[in-house]
Structures are given as C-alpha cells and as structure tokens.
C-alpha cells in the first residue's frame, strides 16, 4: 500500500479527485479528503489500484508525491517499537504511570495489581461492552461481607484520557497505601472500594486506532449511519429531557432509551445487585470542576448544603497540592443542563454522596493533556477523592 500526497492547484483538480473518491472499486482511503485547493490530499492506495491512480493523475497533469512508499514497512516498524518498549516495561516489571497506555496495557496492569496486592485487591468482570470487551472493576477490600462501599469510575467518555490514566494511578495508590496511610487503612477496614478504570473500552480503543476525539460508545444506531451513544446522557435520570440530543449523529445523543448502552446497564446492575454502595464518584475531563446533582433539572438536591460544603472541602484539598483550582457547584450551575447523567441517577437511587469531577485542564490542551501532567493530576484528584471518602466513612447513613 502506498500513501500519496496530491497538491491540487485549483478547483478543477479538486473536482477530479472527488470523482476518483467516488470510484469504490479502487478502495481508496483518503486521509485528507479533497475539499479545497489550499490543502493537500493524502490518500492510501491498495497495491492493486496504485498503477491506475497514478495513470489517472498523470494524464490529468495533477502533481503528486509519495508520502509513504510502503505502508506495511511503517506499520511493522511501529509494531516493533511498541513491542520493544512493552518488553522493556515488562522485564523491568514497572508500568509507567506517567504515560498514556493502550487498553491491553491497562488491562495487563489491572492483573498485575490484583496479583501483587492479592490480600486486598481482586478483579471482577461486571459485564461486556458492545464490542464484547470485558468491563473490569478492581475491588479493594479487607474482608467482611457486603460492606458499605464506594464506587469510582473513569473513562466513560473515551477521549478524556487523563481520567483512565489517573484511575490506574489511583488504583496503585490505594493498594500500596493500605497499611501505611492511616486514613486509607481505616477506610478499608470499614468499607470497600470499587474502581472501574475504563468504563467505555470500545470508545477508548477507537481513540487509539481511529479518532482521538471519539466520546461515545460504539454501538450501531438503527436507521442511521452514525455510530454511538453518549453514555453520560443514557442513565435513567430525567431521560429525554433537555441537555441531550435525539440525533444519533450528535456527540450528546442520549440513545433510544435509558440504559440502552450495555456499558451503562452493567454498572446499574452492579450497583443495584450490590445494594450497599454509599458514594458514587465519576471522573471526566476537562474543565476543573467538582459537581453534585442535579444536571437534568436546575433545582437544588435535598442534601445541597452538605454536598456543597463537602465539595468545597474536596476542592480545597485538591488546590493544596499544586494550586489547581476547581469550581464547585451543581451540574446545572457549573456546566450546563444535561439529562440522563450518571450522578443524577445514583443520587435519585439513594446514593447521597454522588459527585462528578472534571479534571485538568481548562482548555489550553483540553483532551490532549500532555502526559507529564498525568501524575500531578492523579495526585491532586486523589486528595479530593480521599476527602470525600473520609467523610463517607465518618458519616454512615
């Protein structure tokens, strides 16, 4: 396979390329589609079509250059590089928490943590994604039977990479701090923690393979060529209300019905079957916000005063480390009205301590947060989570 770069000089040439684009039998894969003469057109050509395409371009006097002579060579090299660094990671027995990882790499680390800290960490599967990937939750427990528990999830929106990365760091932190940090030790002696590091694995893989900006699940929508549902508009909380789209092509599409997404349903089932979850904490990025319900309506929750005070205390803890400021408020006032959100569901279900975090930054890098900010983000977020968990521990209800 070759990748050509075609420099179009005028609208006429753009139109000729658009004609080429329509010839499906050539199986051309445009990396940059012909749209304006100001931009180059990059196209991947399968080996059987190379001669035909070059002949077409030459006969029309359209200039091109070879961007990639042999795509397979490039892919092989990349695979080799990745395998090499993965091998180095494996043999040095250390997972680099300060970089972004593939799904497989994160899943391997979950197993590693469960093995290394087997006295308190175990891995559970709570379901499967649309594309049949396992949904793995880490359970942190020192025993007991169905103890009151705290739920934490990350990566429900796949492009929010700092959340999955922070979650795996937090997993390591909880596991390694037990027995050393008095606060976490006393917490785990009374309560369990459940941590879902990658809530939307299909989306996460898609951000690695195809579109870094993908947000939704990867479920097919009947009657539409557009894929995916916004999993944080799919919960049974004000479903169908304002702040979610009914258009499958929208990035905030709520889905055909509440809990239509298996990823959401799996969490709902787990929480209901457990029956003793006391806090529901979810990680998103970006904006630096710490929010409590409601999103589907702009009225205050009954526990407004307590949740607001606790939120402010958590934001204060976060700020104490690097000065990062989080704005505290209900979803409706802090961000926008949004129906079908997870913490609205968990709160109305009876889980009083329901909070949603929007982590770094405030827009400078947005979703593309540099890897060197992963650990600082994870560390400050951990302080906020801990503040909330301590309160939950000390205020049983």
């Amino acid at each position, binding site marked *: 396979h070759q990748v050509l770069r075609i420099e179009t000089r005028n609208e006429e040439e753009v139109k000729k390329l658009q004609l080429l684009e329509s010839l499906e039998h050539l199986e051309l894969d445009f990396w*940059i589609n012909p*749209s*304006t003469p*100001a*931009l*180059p057109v990059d196209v991947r050509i399968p080996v059987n079509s190379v001669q035909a395409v070059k002949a077409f371009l030459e006969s029309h006097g359209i200039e091109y250059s070879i961007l990639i002579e042999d795509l397979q060579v490039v892919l092989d090299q990349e695979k080799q590089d990745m395998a090499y660094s993965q091998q180095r990671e494996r043999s040095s027995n250390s997972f680099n928490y300060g*970089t*972004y990882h593939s799904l497989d790499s994160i899943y391997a680390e979950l197993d590693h943590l469960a093995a290394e800290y087997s006295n308190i960490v175990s891995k559970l599967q709570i379901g499967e994604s649309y594309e049949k990937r396992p949904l793995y939750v880490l359970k942190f427990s020192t025993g007991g039977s169905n103890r009151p528990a705290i739920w934490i999830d990350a990566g429900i929106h796949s492009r929010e990479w700092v959340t999955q990365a922070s979650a795996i760091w937090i997993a390591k932190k909880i596991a390694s701090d037990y027995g050393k940090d008095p606060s976490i030790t006393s917490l785990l002696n009374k309560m369990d923690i459940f941590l879902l590091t990658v809530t939307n694995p299909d989306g996460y893989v898609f*951000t*690695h393979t195809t*579109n*870094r*900006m993908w*947000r939704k699940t990867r479920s097919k929508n009947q009657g539409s*060529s*557009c*894929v995916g549902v*916004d999993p944080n508009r799919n919960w049974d909380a004000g479903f169908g209300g304002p702040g979610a*789209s009914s258009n499958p*092509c*929208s*990035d*905030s599409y709520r889905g055909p019905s509440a809990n239509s997404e298996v990823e959401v349903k799996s969490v709902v089932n787990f929480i209901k079957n457990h029956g003793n979850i006391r806090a529901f904490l979810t990680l998103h990025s970006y*904006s630096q916000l710490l929010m409590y319900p409601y999103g589907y309506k702009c009225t205050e929750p009954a526990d407004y005063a307590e949740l607001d005070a606790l939120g402010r205390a958590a934001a204060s803890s976060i700020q104490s480390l690097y000065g990062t400021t989080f704005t505290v408020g209900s979803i409706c006032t802090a*961000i*926008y009205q949004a129906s079908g959100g997870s913490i609205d569901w968990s709160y109305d279900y009876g889980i009083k301590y329901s909070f949603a975090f929007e982590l770094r930054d405030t*827009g*400078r*890098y*947005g*979703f*593309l*947060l*540099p*890897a060197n*900010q992963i650990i600082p983000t994870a560390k400050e977020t951990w302080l906020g989570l801990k503040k909330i968990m301590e309160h939950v521990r000390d205020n049983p209800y």
Partner: protein
Amino acid sequence: DIGDVGHKYHLELVLEDVLDKDSTVNCTAEVLYHLGNKNIAPDVHFTIEGELKNTDEADNIFYNRIKSLEKELVAENIPDSHGNVSPEMEPIRLLAWVASGYVIWQNSTENTKFQLAQIKHVKQVKRSDEYLEFDYMILLHEMVSQEIIPWQMTVLWHPQHGVQVTQDSRQPKHA
C-alpha cells in the same frame, strides 16, 4: 437585559501571559449578544489596564526561522494524541490559538463555549510579500453540544502587522 437589542455582560478579568505566569494585566470588557439573529458576532469592547509585554525578539526569531525554510512548512496533529508539541511547532500552535480566537468570536452565542482542541493540519502558503501565510485545518471543541467541529482558516501574520484571519469556513464532520 437590553430590551429588543440583546444581553450585555460587563466583565472584569485578568489576562495572564501564557509564557510567563507571573505576568498579569487587568482588563475590563463589555460583551453584547444580539437578540434573535445568530449570525452576528457579539459586540466586544475592552480596556487593558497597563501594557502587554513586548514580544519583538521572539516574534523576529520565529519570523526569520520560517522565512529561511527551504520548503514550505507542513505539519499535522498539534498537539499529538499524547499532548506533545515539539518546540519548533509551539509558535505555530500559539498562532493558531490566537487566530482561532477570532473564529470563535465570530461564531459565539450565549449558548456556545468553544475551545481550540487540535490542529489537524497546517501548511504554509508561499507569498511574494513579507507576510507569512498559513492554511490551518483545526478542530474546535464546542462544550455545550460536545461536538468537535473541523474548521479551515487562512492566517496571515507579520511581526509588525499582527494576526489576520483572511478566510475561514466550517467543515463537514467525518462520519
């Protein structure tokens, strides 16, 4: 609330130098969002209390570096998936950020919140005069709808004449 006209906001803000966190300047502004017609950009009036830092040296270094390139600059995915920006591309990114500010202003309403998400592609366009011209394909993140919107913009720049967006157009979203 200005009856029959629109909504006016009075803002007091602090401008912080992206390259020097300790360098700040106070600013006041008035923004008027027009009622009804969403195709008019909001009116903006502002006053900066004090002076912005002089950037002549850095501007000239960047300008001369681009002018002396043998081939026109071409780059993509700034930042990359992992948030990396090479030092050579940092001014290209800052230029896009400024230019996208104009595009965002022209397309903002009270119900939008835009951020520059990424530069997908940038290509320098050869010019016979002393201006630098770049053709950008950027991705804008609109927070209320959560959409990622591709946008093409042609940007002119010169150290003494500042930034100009000479052409911009919203692009269709990929499936």
